[in-house]
């Protein structure tokens, strides 16, 4: 039997979250950090994201995906971090024991003192959004199409319809057009685009590619290869209107219909998941409800900026170091609750207010002229004005360490919850 490795910290996944977390754990004093990646290279999804727009917060620069990733890969190579590529984690037990496999080492077992989950997310498939029809070749998720074109150098189709206006769908519309394919249009079931406004402008409007809001695909035609799709208008309840159906010939349907945090390992480890985010419940150190298991990036919830992924990774890396080096135990955590027009908030718990905390949240519906507030108990401890808020655009508010102390010391009742809410400034 091979020897069992017992590192200070094992990071599962080496996309932006895993890279950032491993580096932060090392900087915070952990000597023995292992970074486990199932792919043959570091960077996760970033190497295929050859468009720009990455890094504006972290680096105050506009970088492409590969450039952003390379900055961290260079750091990891300089740091004393053991990288295990081509290694797939098969199991994570509640006692943090990791079972993995690689072609070079065969079965590998690790018993790390802390674990950071950084597995990212996966794309929803046609079945999860229940698109009826045949099952021909040519139905592909936007991320898979992006990989085919940008990494493998292959065109997944010539005449393309895109369903879903999430960022990857928008970016891929432009990519297909630049590659000489024709994109008939982008169809979005909601009455507002799913991606960032800048992507709607730069990827569709600049290329005269139509965006059909309140539309969906109701049938996929073609027995061998996609021959066309039926599209239809949807009513207010998002139900297709039969009379509005229209046949669109195409050979490829690209789906950008949402991302799901990839938490199969988390489940195996007994990590409790938030049904709203589909990721683990975490506290302000990004520690999950399972002791010594931390999580960051899109495994927690789908962030729309890689910069936020990196920030959450740094918090998780520092948290893991603190846990291993100082044996920090979580105090009775206080629940963070979504208030008015807030769908969810990450972190969902806070147990220690001695440092500044970033809260990430999304609104439930678009709204103009609002203030995002954080309440400790009944006291507003932070507020930030926004001209416009929309569900696809994640909001971030910071709560200062001193703010909470102030609320407690003001002599009011003991604070039992933190609320994040978005209130209108118009009334």
């Amino acid at each position, binding site marked *: 039997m091979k020897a069992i490795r017992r590192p200070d910290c094992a990071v599962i996944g080496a996309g932006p979250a895993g890279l950032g977390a491993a580096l932060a754990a090392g900087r915070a004093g952990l000597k023995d950090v292992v970074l486990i990646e*199932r792919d043959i290279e570091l960077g996760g999804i970033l190497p295929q994201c050859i468009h720009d727009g990455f890094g504006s917060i972290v680096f105050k620069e506009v970088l492409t995906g590969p450039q952003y990733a390379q900055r961290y890969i260079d750091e990891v190579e300089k740091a004393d971090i053991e990288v295990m590529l*081509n290694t*797939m984690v*098969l199991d994570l037990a509640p006692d943090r024991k990791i*079972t993995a*496999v*690689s*072609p*070079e*080492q*065969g*079965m590998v077992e690790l018993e790390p003192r802390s674990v950071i989950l950084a597995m990212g997310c*996966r*794309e929803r*498939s*046609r*079945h*999860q959004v*229940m698109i*009826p*029809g*045949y*099952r*021909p*070749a040519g139905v*592909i*998720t936007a*991320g*898979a199409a992006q*990989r*085919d*074109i940008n990494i*493998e*150098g*292959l*065109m*997944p*189709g*010539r005449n393309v319809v895109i369903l879903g206006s999430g960022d990857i769908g928008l970016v891929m519309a432009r990519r297909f057009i630049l*590659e*000489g*394919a024709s994109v008939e249009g982008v169809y979005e079931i909601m009455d507002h685009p799913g991606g960032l406004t800048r992507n709607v402008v730069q990827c569709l409007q600049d290329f005269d590619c139509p965006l059909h809001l309140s539309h969906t695909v*109701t*049938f996929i035609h073609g*027995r*061998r*290869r996609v021959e066309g799709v039926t599209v239809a208008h949807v009513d207010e309840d998002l139900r*297709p209107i039969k009379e509005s159906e229209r046949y669109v010939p195409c*050979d490829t349907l690209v789906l950008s219909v949402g991302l799901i945090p990839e938490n*199969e390992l988390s*489940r195996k480890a007994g990590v409790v998941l938030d049904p709203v985010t589909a990721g683990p419940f975490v506290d302000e150190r990004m520690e999950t409800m399972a002791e010594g298991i931390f999580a960051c990036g899109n495994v927690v919830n789908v962030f729309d900026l890689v910069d936020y992924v990196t920030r959450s990774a740094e918090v998780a890396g520092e948290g893991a170091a603190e846990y291993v080096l100082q044996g920090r135990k979580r105090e009775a955590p206080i629940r963070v609750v979504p208030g008015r027009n807030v769908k969810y908030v990450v972190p969902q718990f806070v147990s220690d207010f001695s440092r500044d905390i970033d809260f990430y949240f999304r609104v439930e519906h678009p709204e103009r002229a609002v203030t995002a507030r954080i309440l400790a108990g009944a006291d507003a401890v932070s507020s930030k004005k926004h001209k416009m808020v929309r569900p696809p655009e994640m909001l971030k508010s910071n709560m200062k360490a001193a703010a909470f102390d102030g609320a407690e010391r003001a002599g009011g009742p003991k604070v039992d919850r933190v609320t994040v809410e978005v209130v209108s400034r118009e009334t």
Partner: protein
Amino acid sequence: MSGHPQIELPRTAGVVVVGAGVSGCSVAREIVKYTPDVVILEKESDVADATTKANNAEVHSGIGEKYGTLKQKLNVRGNALYDEFVKDLDIAFERQGLLLVFTPRTLPENVTSRLPAGVVEFLLSRVIPRLVMHSARRKGIPGQRMLSRDEILRMEPHVTRDAVAGVFDPTYGLVSPYKLTIALAENCVANGARVFLDTEVTDIRVERGAVRSVVTNRGEIETPLVINAAGLFADEVADMAGAGGFRIHPRKGASLLFDRELTYNYVKSSVSEFKMFRKGLSKGGGAMPTAEGNLQLGPTAIEVEDKYDTSISAEEIQEIFERFYTLLPDFPRNAMISSFSGVRAPTEEEDFVIGASDTARGFVNVAGIQSPGLASAPAIAEMVLGIVQGLGVPTEPRTDYNPRRNAPPKFIDLSHEERDRLIAKDPRYGRIICRCEYITEGEVVDAIHSIIPARTMDAVKRRTRVGMGRCQGGFCGYRLAAILAGELGIPVTEVTKDGGGSWMFAGETKSLIRQRAVAEDSEAGR
């Protein structure tokens, strides 16, 4: 070697089986025990690649079949033969049992609304279960057991609270229809038979009242004996020999598949809500665990025009959801990962058509095989063997026949030590290609070089489960195509999903731009 398009058809064969579905391959394997001179022709790019691949895996007991029909008899006989049938094939077959549940919906509303509640309760808890038990005994199905409401809920806690009583049928089992068919075909080939894929029968030549040859898109085979197991096209093939007289009318069935992680053990046996005087032609389907532990719901039964109509409509999905919502009120609707649909091949009479032709000697129909065709397969094979032995197939078993077929290793089922040994021998068994189902490159390569070589994405998928998990091939699509291309020695742009016309890639990047530029140049030149 079989299955490669470049290999020429033989000029003669002792027996030609038309159709490599579960019926054709079961019959072929039975005959191969007596003679190796068997050729199986399949028009699709893989065995099990039409009706069989979308079969729901149910090995029925025969309880749902009308007493006295051929399919009822073959179903009961086939079910009894199953353990022996699959014994040497190295595939999973388990008798999970079928739980028939009697609820207030078992009787039509116009009946229950006219009767006092006590009478309805009595009918549901005492009378109807006994009728079902009696019917099973009459058909020769052993082992049925009546269950109280409490017993049902202990066995299957997700079943509706308004269940009144149940009957448990322990002979019912589940087997992967395509894995079974692949195993049968492999065993045939290992014992001297040959399988030709992408080979479509276009004519049957009959001379002086006897079969003379089979004409295909790839040449002609002289043979005295043709077995028509052409499924949906059995009527057309029979007509070629003038041995028809029946018509296959396609009937579609759709099923839904759920994420294994979220539905593991959701039901332990197959669960079905029993409905009397049911309209329609399906036995009503059920909620069943697949061999891998996913929850599966279905199938529907809808008459269609097109024998190739494997689509699934929004209404069908809705129908399945509604049907099972009453039986299993808490089933995880959001965990659906796939839907699939297949076309059954019934005749107008709704019974199997098995027998030798009176007009074309040597032509044997194995037609109209629909559910319970999978359960009946061993009995169908037995029956057809008897027929063809009367038409010249030897009656003495071969001494050199080897019944054993070994499945290639399945990484996820092995112990750590076994995995390590395998990876040390070939590191490709340590490279996970399918992240959802933990399928390794080694297993994919095994499938591509197996006895019936997998040459398409779907053929590899059927043999290994690659791409069958929750991401449905989102991560592994390209990787699988690249391995296929490498192992088959073809450009990746020639890889198909499932044969003819199901291309995966339009070309390399920049190729479309070049094509466009060329088109514009010639436009400008004119």
